[in-house]
């Protein structure tokens, strides 16, 4: 069980956030259809588990120069038009956090326990195209961590668009 790197990243209002307690870290973005398909399901998890002390952080690591739709301005516009969201939307402008976590896709989900150990990593659920899948893998992982059990599965293959790295 690896320990996840600590970080502080700014949200769309400039406030900084990082892991604190049980935390769901989601690498996501504005333009990927997989990220968009899972977005509402992930927000539902953020809402449903907030009362149990779970913090959810959405991080956009994509190269905004080649993909202007993932710029901080575009992130702000999205939150303004769709929000408020139950989780802050953070900008990883130098991609350092995404690299440190080994993020591969958008979305790529990590569940950290209070000691910042990675307890689950992968996709939110089995099917981006099925709303009823309900981010169940993520929910099961959170339930396990909150109940002091090991998530099963603890890892699934992340599914989505590749993170758009800078050259």
């Amino acid at each position, binding site marked *: 069980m690896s320990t996840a790197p600590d970080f502080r990243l700014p949200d769309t209002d400039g406030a900084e956030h990082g892991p604190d307690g049980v935390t769901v870290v989601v690498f996501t973005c504005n333009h990927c*259809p*997989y990220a*968009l398909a899972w977005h509402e399901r992930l927000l539902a998890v953020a809402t449903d588990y907030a009362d149990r002390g779970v913090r959810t952080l959405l991080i956009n690591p994509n190269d905004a120069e080649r*993909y202007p739709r993932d710029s901080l301005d575009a992130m702000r516009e999205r939150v303004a038009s769709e929000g408020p969201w139950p989780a802050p939307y953070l900008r990883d402008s130098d991609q350092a956090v995404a690299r440190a976590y080994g993020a591969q896709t958008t979305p790529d989900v990590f569940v950290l326990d209070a000691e910042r150990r990675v307890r689950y990593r992968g996709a939110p659920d089995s099917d981006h195209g099925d709303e009823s899948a309900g981010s169940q893998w993520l929910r099961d992982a959170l339930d396990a961590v909150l109940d002091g059990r090991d998530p099963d599965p603890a890892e699934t293959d992340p599914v989505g668009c590749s993170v758009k790295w800078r050259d």
Partner: protein
Amino acid sequence: MREVLGEECLDPQAVEVREVPTDETAEREGFVGSPTIRIDGRDIAPTEGEPVGLTCRVYRTRDGSVSPVPDREDLRDALRRHHEHST
């Protein structure tokens, strides 16, 4: 896609898969994201004002959901339209 071609009694092997590896290629091809499906050069879901580039393409299925691929019925309709116009 090949399934729909087969269902429409068309040759599933007639699909030509082309990689768009660079920004320059995307610009030259007017490529607005992956996957882009064209029938005889015509996009099955044409977009207006969509920027050209190496990105992922967002489709809407008929139930309004976001999808990385087009709705199979949209693909079917595009194939039928093409068939009508070409016969």
